C-alpha cells in the first residue's frame, strides 16, 4: 500500500536525533508489547508480514504521531480483534469476558521463548530457476497495490543492476494476506543516486533494495 510508512526520499522530518546510552525499552509497557507481539505471532499464526501490514494500515496521523511501540500495540490489538481472538468489548472491560479456542500452537510459555529470540529461516525451495543473474539490468515495476508490498515507491519505474541472488524466500505480498508463502527469488538490486533522485543527486550515492522477482522486469 502507498502508506506513510514508505518514507524513503521524503523531506521535512528534520534531523536525526540520537539519544546517548539509550536503553532497550523506555517504559515497562514497551517490553510487554514487544513480547506479546512475538508470542502471539509465533503461537497464534500471525506472521511478520501480517503484523507489518497492520502497522502500515494505521491511519496516517496515528502512524506519524505514535511512538514505535504504541504503533506495535495498536496494530496487535487491531489484528487480534479482527481475527476474533479478542473482543472489542473485552478490550474496553480490561478482562476476558468469554473463553476462546486455544492458539494454534497453544499457550505461549517458557519453552517457546528460544524459538522467538533467534530468527527463523525465510528460505523456501522453489522449482524454478532465477530469471535474473548478477549484472543484469532490471526495471522495478510500477505497481501500486493497496495490499502489502515490500517494493518501496522510490525505486518503482527505475532501472538498476542485479548485484546478488539471495535465494528464494517467503513472498510478503502473499503471506501478509493469508495467501500462502508463495516463495520467490530474492535479489539485491542497486540503483545510482542519479537514477533515483535526478541530476542533482550525490554522484557517489548508490542505493540497493532487496527485490523479489515479481517486482522486476528485464531492462
Amino acid at each position, binding site marked *: 500500500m502507498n502508506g506513510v510508512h514508505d518514507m524513503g526520499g521524503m523531506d521535512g522530518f528534520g534531523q*536525526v536525533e540520537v539519544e546517548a546510552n539509550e536503553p*532497550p525499552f523506555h517504559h515497562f509497557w514497551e517490553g510487554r*508489547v514487544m513480547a506479546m507481539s512475538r*508470542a502471539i505471532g509465533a503461537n497464534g499464526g500471525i506472521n511478520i508480514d501480517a503484523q507489518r501490514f497492520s502497522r502500515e494500515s494505521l491511519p496516517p496521523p496515528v502512524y506519524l504521531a505514535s511512538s514505535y511501540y504504541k504503533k506495535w500495540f495498536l496494530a496487535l490489538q487491531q489484528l487480534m480483534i479482527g481475527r476474533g481472538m479478542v473482543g472489542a468489548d473485552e478490550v474496553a472491560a480490561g478482562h476476558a469476558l468469554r473463553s476462546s479456542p486455544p492458539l494454534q500452537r497453544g499457550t505461549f510459555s517458557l519453552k517457546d521463548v528460544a524459538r522467538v529470540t533467534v530468527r*527463523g529461516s525465510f528460505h523456501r525451495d522453489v522449482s524454478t530457476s532465477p530469471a535474473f543473474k548478477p549484472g543484469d539490468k532490471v526495471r522495478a515495476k510500477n505497481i501500486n497495490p493497496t495490499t502489502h508490498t515490500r517494493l518501496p515507491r522510490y525505486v518503482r519505474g527505475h532501472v538498476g543492476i542485479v548485484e546478488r541472488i539471495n535465494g528464494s524466500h517467503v513472498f510478503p505480498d502473499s503471506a501478509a494476506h493469508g495467501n500462502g508463502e508463495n516463495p520467490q527469488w530474492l535479489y539485491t538490486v542497486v540503483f545510482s543516486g542519479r537514477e533515483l533522485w535526478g541530476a542533482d543527486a550525490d554522484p557517489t550515492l548508490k542505493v540497493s533494495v532487496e527485490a523479489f522477482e515479481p517486482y522486476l522486469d528485464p531492462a
Partner: protein
Amino acid sequence: MSAHDHDHGHDHDHGSELSEMQLRVRALETILTEKGYVDPAALDAIVETYETKIGPRNGARVVAKAWTDPAFKRALLDDASKAIGTLGHVSRVGDHLIAVENTPQRHNMIVCTLCSCYPWEMLGLPPIWYKAAPYRSRAVKDPRGVLADFGVALPQETEIRVWDSTAETRFLVLPMRPPGTEGWSEEQLADIVTRDSMIGTGLPKVQP
C-alpha cells in the same frame, strides 16, 4: 473500541500517553493471560533476553574477529550467517545475514525505509532514531547529510552505498580497522566497535 481511541493523533503530553499506555497494555496482557494465550513469565523471559543478553557486543566480537583473522573475514563476507555460526561465544544469528565491508573507496550504511528491519541478533533492538522518520526518509536520498547529523564526514570521492533492508536479509557493516590498533587483542578491539559503526552511521572510536 472506546471513545478514548479518538484521542490518537493529537498531542499528548508525555505523562498522559505513558499512563494511558500502561493501562491499555496491561489490559491487553490481562486478557491474553486470562484466555490462556500467553504465560506472563514467558513474556518476562523475552524482555529479559533483549535487556540483558542480546546487544551490540555480539556484533563487536564478530568485527574484532574479522579484523584479526583473515580466513574468518573471508568466510564472513562470503556467508555471514554460516561464519558466525562457527563462533561458539556469539549467540546464534539466524539466517540471511550479509556482512558488507567498508573500504577507503566505499562506505556502507544500513536502513529500513519501510519499517525497522535490523540485525537484532548482532546489535540488539534498534535505537529509536533508526526506527524514526528522519533517518528512514533521508538515508537513501541524503546519506551525507545524515552522517553529518552523527558528526561523520567522509571524503567527497568516497562511494556511499545504502542498503535498504526491504526483505528478510539483514546487514552488518564491517567497519575499517582504525590505525594505531596494531597488536591489540580481540577483546580490546571489540571495545572500540560501536553500534553505530556496524550500522554505518559511525566509525570505530579509539580513545585518545
